[in-house]
Each structure stands twice: as C-alpha cells, then as structure tokens.
C-alpha cells in the first residue's frame, strides 16, 4: 500500500505534530508514503475569488500525483475537499479538463483522473481496516471519552467527497473506538469548526467554536479529536482568545487523530510530537489558569495518557 502524501500549506508550519505523528503511525502500520516537494496549495482559499484559478491549482497537484503514479493521501480536510471537487468538476466537464491540461502542459503535466484522492481517515478505515488497526493498539485507552469532530469539507458535499454517510457518518467514530476510547454522541458533531471565517468575521467564527466546546463538554467529551489542521488551529486559537478575554465558558483541547492512535499503539510520545511546542501564535498569551466556573478546567492535550 503506497500513497503520495499531500500535507498542504499549514501543517508543516503550524501543526507539525500532525505530520510527525501521521508519518510515525503510517510507517508502523506498513503504509508507504512518497513525498513530492512539488505539491503546492490545493486551491481552496481562492475558491471565493476565482473558480478557474482554484481549478488550476488543484489540477496541478492531481496531475503531479498522476505523474508519480500514486493515489493521493491527504491530511487536511479542506485540501481533501478542494482536490475532490476539482477532480469531480473535471470528470463532469471535459471542456474544463482540457482547458486545465492546456495550462498544465507548460509544466509538462497532464491530468486524466486515473488515480484516487483519499483522506488519511479513509485510508485507515477502508484500505487498512478497523480490525487490523485494533490489533496494533496494544495499549488501548480504557476510560477516555472523545468528542469526535468530523470536519465539513471531507463530509460534504457527499456526492463529491465520497467520504462517508453525510448525515450519520461512522468512519471517524470507528477509528476513535478502535483505540479503546469512547466516542461520545454530541449534537454538534457534524457542525463546522468556524475556521473558514477566522480572519473574515471573527465574532461569528469564535461564537461557532464556543458552541462546539460547550456542546462537546456537555456530552462528556474530554478532548476533541480532529483530522484537519484548520479545525485544530481554530480550536487552539479560540481557546487562546477565550483565555485572554477571561471568558469562563467551557473550553476543549483538541488532539489530532494519529496522535491518539499512536498513543494507543504504545508509540514514543516524542515520535508523535506530543511534546512539540506547536503554539507559536499562543506563546505571547498567559498560560491558562484553572477556573472554577463552568465546565472542567483546561488540561493540555499532552496530558492524554493511555491507561494500562
């Protein structure tokens, strides 16, 4: 099993523990990955502005994977949604595909759509399988309760992303359950994290995240489990905004899925980036103080420990 790894723009700089833990876990699970330094922006951020630019940027990456002769494995859900959308458009409308190929030809690239685009979670669930995964979890969690956060752009639009049942998805819950942790049911599980509007309409963006925090806590979740850098950064940032604004509403820490999995597999914490100082934007903020009001006190995601 071999994939071309698409890490996107944000992970290497701002969520390096996601990349590190994913690489460690994948290597241990025997899933081969091939890097391609030529992969660039997936095109998602420019969709608001110009469809053709978005399509070219996405198609370029798809064509590069095709040149490698490999299926793509994507870590970011926004990148995943964007690449799937471009592949979908180019499959539906051959004229657009030809137009893109004309532009790609300048770089000696061509896209025909022979290879698949998959998210890390799909690879683990479908290509590897839950049973194989469970076997590897030699140090499963016993009492940990996770609020599993699906992320929008992998789930919807389902006819394009082909990720899971959009209304009652189970892939991510299955994967979390495989580590021994309990995936709690919470009403806002499938809602947006708020990240697409951070930097655009912060009041709205932050409010949506606060709602998720409160809802996840109410359902008994101890941590959020995510598989997208944007969701993760959003949760980090809103927590920081709440702390500095002395907002006492419930807060939650998030952890990226390969870290959770790696811990259950008994892997080294360092190899999973658990101790990595990732919060470059947070360092200026005072450390969170335990608060007596509403919800639990804030614990760091690095406190997650598998229990014997």
């Amino acid at each position, binding site marked *: 099993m071999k994939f071309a790894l698409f890490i996107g723009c944000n992970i290497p*700089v701002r969520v390096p523990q996601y990349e590190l833990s994913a690489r460690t876990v994948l290597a241990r699970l025997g899933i081969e990955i091939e890097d391609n*330094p030529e992969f660039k922006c997936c095109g*998602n*951020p420019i969709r608001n502005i110009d469809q053709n630019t978005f399509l*070219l*940027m996405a198609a370029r990456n798809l064509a590069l994977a095709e040149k490698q002769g490999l299926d793509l494995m994507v870590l970011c859900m926004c990148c995943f949604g964007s690449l799937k959308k471009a592949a979908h458009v180019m499959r539906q409308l051959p004229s657009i595909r030809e137009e893109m190929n004309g532009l790609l030809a*300048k770089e000696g690239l061509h896209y025909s759509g022979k290879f698949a685009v998959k998210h890390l979670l799909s690879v683990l669930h479908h290509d590897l399988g839950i049973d194989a995964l469970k076997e590897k979890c030699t140090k499963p969690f016993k009492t940990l309760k996770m609020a599993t956060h699906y992320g929008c752009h992998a789930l919807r639009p389902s006819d394009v992303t082909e990720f899971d049942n959009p209304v009652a998805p189970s892939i991510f819950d299955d994967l979390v359950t495989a580590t021994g942790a309990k995936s709690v049911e919470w009403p806002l599980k499938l809602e947006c994290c708020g990240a*697409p509007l951070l930097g655009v309409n912060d009041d709205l963006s932050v409010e949506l995240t606060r709602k998720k925090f409160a809802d996840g806590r109410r359902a008994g979740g101890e941590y959020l489990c995510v598989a997208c850098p944007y969701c993760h950064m959003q949760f980090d940032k809103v927590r920081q905004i709440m702390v500095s604004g002395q907002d006492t509403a419930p807060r939650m820490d998030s952890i990226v899925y390969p870290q959770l999995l790696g811990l259950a597999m008994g892997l080294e914490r360092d190899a999973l980036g658990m101790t990595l100082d990732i919060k470059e934007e947070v360092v200026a903020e005072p450390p969170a103080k335990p608060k007596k009001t509403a919800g639990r006190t804030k614990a760091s995601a690095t406190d997650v420990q598998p229990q014997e």
Partner: protein
Amino acid sequence: MVYTMLLYLALVVFGIGLLFKVAGWFRFNIGIYDPSLTVSVRIRAAIQGILSVIFSPKLATLIKVLVADVLFQNHLRRQDTLRWVMHMLIFAGFTFLFFMHALDKIIITSLFEKYYLALNPFLLVSGSMVLAGIAIAAYRRFILKVPRLKTNAMDAYVLIILAVILISGIAMELTKLSSYEHYQIFWDIHFLACMVGLAYLPFSKFLHVFTTPLSLLANAVMDANSHPANVKTRQIMELDACLHCTNCSKRCSVAAASDIIGNSNILPSERIAVLKEYVAYKEIGARGFAALQEGISLCTNCDRCTVICPAGINLRDLWFNAREEVLQREHAAPLVLTPFSFYRGLKRQEMTSDQYKQPLSNAVKDLTAPFERFSTGEVVPLGPQNSEFKKTAVLSGGTVTYAYCFTCENCSTVCPVVGNYEAPQQALDLLPHQIIRSLGFGLKDAALGARMLWYCLTCYQCQEHCPQGVKVTDIFYELKNLAVVEANQSSAQNGSESAAR
C-alpha cells in the same frame, strides 16, 4: 592621470551611493507606522544591538554563519548543486581576482618585491572560473527556461557587466605579449567596465555582496525579543539583500495562481522588487498598488519562501508587515474575505481592534454596495428578468440547479450562520434560500450583494440538505466570483474617473 581620476570618481559615487542606501535602511518604514521609532532611535538601537551581540555568546553563532553560510554557502548547496557550483565559481574567482589582481599593487607587490608575470596563469584560471559561472547563470536564465525564473533588466545588467570585465580582462592578458595596441584597447574596456561596475554597485544587485551576508548574520542572531526598531531596520535592509534568484517563486505555494491571474506580484521574488520601490517613495500608482495588494494578500503563509531563501531573509514577517500596511492604506481587495486571511486572524493580537477590523469591513462594504437599494425600502420590481445575468451565473456544472428551488427553506434552517443570529436578516441581508430565489428572479444586485455570501462558512450543510438537489454552496461560490468581477470593474471605473479628474 585620467585613469586615477576616473577611479576616484567611481569611488566617490560608490561611497555616496552606499551611504544613501544605508541611510534608507534607517529612514524607510514598512508595516503599521510607529511614530516612536524615529531615525535616531533606530540608529541607536542598531548600534546597541550589534554591540550586545558581539560581546555575547551569540558571537559564536555569527562566526559559524559567516563560515558555513557566507563563505561556503552551505544552505545553497543543499538546495541546488548546479546553482551552488555557479555561485561558488563566480564568488571564488571574483574574490581571488579582486584581491590578487585589482588590488595587486597594494597586496601582492608589498609581499613580493619582484612580482610580475608576463602571462599570469592564476589570473587566467580564476578568470575562467568566473566566466564559467556566468555561462551557467546565462544558461539557466536564457536557455534552460526554468519555470517562473524571471529575468529582469538588473539580472541582465549584472551578467553583461561581469562578462565584459572578464572577457576584456582575459583578452588583455592574452594580447599582452603579442600586440600592445590591442592590449591597450582591451585595457581601456576592462578598466572602464570595472569603474562602471564599482560606481553603480550600491544601486545594483552587486550590493548583495554586503547585504546578503548582513541579512544572514542578522537573522541568525535576531529573535522575538529583538528591539522592534531593529526589526524594522532589518526588514528594509533585507529588501536590498534579495538577489532575485527566484528560488522563492519556484517554491511558492500559490505561484500557479499567477499563471491565470497574470499578476507578477503574486510571486515573492517579483513582489520584493515592487516593495523596494514602494518603501522608498510610497507611491507606485493606483494600478501598481492594487496589484501589490492583491499579490501580497494571495498568500497561504506556508513559509516555504522563508525556509528556502538563500539570503536568509525573513520573508514571513516581511509579508505580514507589508500586507498590514497596504491593507490599512487603501480599501482592501476581496481577497481579505477568504481563508487567505486565516493567518491574519491568528495574529490579530499584534494590532489594535480597529486596525484589524477596518480592512474587513471596508471590503464587505465595497462588495455589498449593490444591495443598498434593497435596504432603503425602495420597491424593486421583479420584472423584467435579467436573463443575461442568469446566463453568466452558470459557469460550472450544477449551478443551473437554482431553478429547482421550491423555497422550502431547508437551507436557511440548517445554516449554522443563520442559526447564530436572533435577527439574521439584519446581519446577513438575505438568507440562503432568498439568495437562490433572487438568482431565479434574475435580481442581480440582490443575488450578488448580500453579506450572507461573504459570511458563508462553505460548510455545505445547505447543499447536503436540499431536497431538490440545488447546489447552494457551489452557487454561492460562483456568485462570489461574479461579485468580485463586478467590484473590480466598478473600482477600475472609479480609478479611471479620478485619474481623468
């Protein structure tokens, strides 16, 4: 006599030019203006900073960088062997020539009394080294045609002047014994070219022999605790440290966008050149400014350029500061209302609330201007339908599905943005189903002007839950694209009107 005068003239121009440049590093400003950082504050901070580094353990870092990155250019070797060979040939050859040949009267003659060689093999070897380096550079720029390796007039000038100096020098050496007449001609060409190169050095790319090591050294010892005055000074200096090697543009995450949008400011290496002019004069024309703003906003902040820059320029911080300045100065382009602004959101504590919000609210205001006629209470007739608009709004497959809408309002019911407000229409102008109906009625200003479009999360809940298969989110994307086109057209019109006035 003439030669000596020319030499002094060149030296004087060189000296004044260098002073002028260095003064600029302390005078010019980039980023949000801070009146407390005056020129004298910046000069004092720089001197203090330099002294405090020299008399601290950081000196070891400086020496390490000086040897590994300045002399041997290790970081370049790791990236691209051919480029490293090219640069080392030019660098080593030229350094040798400079000290052993140009300054031979001062250095060699003082060491060896009877130094004179009729045909100096060392000169020929080092000269050939530089020439080989130039040949590789020219090959890369003009024959290999590396994608997005742009060549500007300065790049060409540097290669040409170096080639003239070298070829005339070698010809001079070779004709030394055979023909005095030819020798004299070559000598004149050689000398003049050297003087032009020297006099023009502070204004040319050659300045990098000073500024690039300076940038590498400064960035090696500066950190988050450095004096803000020094950060400002360093950032202006860094603009002169850029060699226009275009490495950044080749690695740039969004470089492909420039192929379609056709704005070279999207490429970091080209943007630096524009910024250099901008910081000096703060005036690059309305069109130039708009292009700069677009280029600088269209950035995912992936840091690849910063990691790859062989001159060690901290491009990440440079872009952030420059973007803030151009966003504050003129109305922001629609690009600020996209996920490209996420990084700015992460860094919002670095500016005041007003500075943070102003560009965003201006951009929303500009884009939603067409909707104003609906807010004034004016009665808008539903016909005749703007069928031309309906035709333009179906750029991609699926968008045409707006016609299937039977106004069940499912989209607006499941929308988390709508659900966030007690009076959503006040905050959003129109709800999702109303936008789809406006499109159905051909009401262009309503469909393109509602704030809902720009406050859409693109979470696709609406589209997923539509019983009629209306591609709501995809239609919104398309309407936003059209609104951008409209806004650009109207701002171009305003621009030409004000220019006419």
